């Protein structure tokens, strides 16, 4: 019997593949699919009283979501903040990666490690340190006041959308660096030289060659930043105030002090679907756009 199994295993690629995948498959099933299924089913229930849930099927929670202006506007705001964060991160990380990929000859790895050095401290600590920088008595405000440039502290810096955007951009920049660097580093420099040789200026070469060829990295970076930042609730909770609140803070409240599990589950599901749709649209249009310019 063992012999039969051994010879079957030796010949069957799918058997090998599944046995190698099994640790990950088990983990994903236990830690992702089951909770996700639970959340999905809860979104079709009704919270009757503080402790009691009616388990009969209804889509009323989804209708509730769209009837509450607050939830819809928070969803839109979450997506908007994430978009801005993604855009600003790309804009700051891309030139850095470009420089390392094409102009740094030795110790590229060292540069990358040094750039990601701040990210070795905990996420929470970094969020708190932004409080010290942006606060009403923080580094920026007190130095501007001491320099006589301001008489009152800038209030939009702290407990605002701006604070959330600045903090998230900084927090996720490291994750954009790697995919961007990898895709830029893969570009054969002679392609760039060839474009210059064929009469294109530096800027034109960037638009026609470098940018389209680094597209996989750009899409990767967009997804890596956009997806987690839409759902981030630590930064808006600590630095957002009322102005910078995002949908995830509401979802947390529904599962916590408000104690409306079904509405929380429905909001989370809607957010999941929104992220999926936005992701698909963004990757598709980015691809089309670059095809047009090249």
């Amino acid at each position: 019997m063992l012999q039969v199994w051994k010879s079957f295993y030796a010949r069957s690629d799918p058997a090998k593949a599944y046995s190698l995948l099994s640790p990950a498959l088990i983990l994903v099933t236990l830690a992702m699919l089951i909770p996700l299924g639970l959340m999905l089913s809860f979104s079709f229930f009704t919270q009757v009283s503080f402790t009691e849930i009616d388990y009969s099927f209804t889509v009323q929670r989804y209708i509730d979501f769209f009837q509450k202006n607050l939830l819809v506007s928070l969803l839109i705001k979450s997506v908007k903040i994430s978009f801005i964060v993604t855009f600003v991160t790309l804009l700051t990380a891309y030139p850095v990666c470009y420089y390392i990929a094409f102009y740094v000859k030795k110790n590229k790895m060292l540069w990358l490690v040094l750039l990601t050095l701040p990210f070795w401290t905990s996420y929470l600590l970094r969020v708190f340190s932004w409080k010290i920088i942006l606060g009403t008595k923080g580094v920026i405000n007190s130095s501007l006041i001491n320099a006589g440039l301001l008489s009152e502290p800038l209030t939009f810096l702290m407990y605002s959308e701006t604070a959330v955007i600045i903090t998230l951009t900084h927090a996720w920049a490291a994750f954009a660096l790697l995919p961007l660097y990898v895709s830029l580093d893969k570009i054969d420099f002679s392609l760039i030289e060839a474009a210059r040789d064929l009469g294109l200026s530096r800027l034109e070469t960037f638009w026609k060659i470098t940018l389209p060829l680094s597209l996989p990295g750009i899409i990767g970076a967009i997804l890596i930043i956009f997806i987690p930042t839409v759902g981030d609730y630590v930064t808006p909770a600590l630095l957002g105030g009322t102005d910078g609140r995002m949908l995830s803070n509401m979802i947390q409240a529904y599962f916590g002090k408000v104690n409306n599990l079904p509405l929380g589950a429905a909001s989370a599901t809607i957010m999941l679907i929104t992220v999926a749709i936005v992701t698909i649209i963004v990757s598709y249009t980015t691809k089309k756009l670059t095809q047009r310019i090249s």
Partner: protein
Amino acid sequence: MNDSFIQINGISKHFGNVKAVDDVSFQIKEGEFFSLLGPSGCGKTTLLRLLAGFEYPTSGNLLLDGSDITALPPDKRPTNMVFQNYAIFPHINVEKNVQFGLRKLGLTNDEIIKRVKDVLSLVKLEGYEERYSSQLSGGQRQRVALARALVRQPKVLLLDEPLGALDKKLRDEMQLELRTLQKEIGITFVFVTHDQQEAISMSDRVAVMSEGKIQQMSSPNELYKNPQNIFVSDFIGETNFLKAKTESKDGEYINVNIEDLGSFKIKNNLNISENASDVICSVRPETMMIDKEKSDWDICLEGKIKQTSYLGEMTKFYVETKEIEKIITVSSQYFDNQSFQDGKCFISINLNDISLLNKK
């Protein structure tokens, strides 16, 4: 024809302490197939990149067709390059690759279409317009690179070891084709290669480079038959070196004392007049004769075959002699590796086939 179409005047290029190109001056004729030949690291590619505008010289200047191009960026130079790895843009198809360089020339749409069509038929790539680089063979990619550069009708085409990545059969074919193409369109080609056979078989003139300097610049025949120094003689083909001292000049000839062999009167191709100066005598393996019997040639030495290598059309023999310390290489089309059972042989040299080389 303009004899000084490209003028390279005292060009140096230093990378830190390394003198990649060291005070080089020469001229390239209009419509010429010119090769830069040398081992890797000799500065030939740097020199080509200086012509293309990818590098700027540390000193010296470059003139093309009478105008100074030293400080022009690559997109402003009337040159185009065929890259070693072809550098075909992977995200656009063959047709768009070839059109790529035409956007900035201010041509009408009809002209662009016509030029692309003409150049694709010139390099025999009709029907491949829609393909991408990844769908082409090495030889086809090379043709795309050629078409993309030629379609702009540059004054000079720069080729950076374009045949290096092809297999031998295809390389031989492309050599012939490139040569024919160049004669047909009459554009000046500057061709970089480390393959001496390639340079010799294709070029009108060859510049042999080593350590950033030009060692010799002449026609392929001249290069092979009359190398000016040891480096060139060794790099172009194969040869045997024998140490010698000059004795006395005798008209067009000179008496030399070849180490271990004695005095001989040979052609004074270097026009040496001093006595007792150290020189090197070079004898090509194919000019010597190997035989089982003694011959009546000017020099005949008895030897023992240490090693043979059979090459099909000829065989190389590595022969040890009593007189000369070094192993002598002789090649023969008549005998092969099975001809000498006991290894005993005679090698003969004609004095006419000995050429003098500068020690340096």
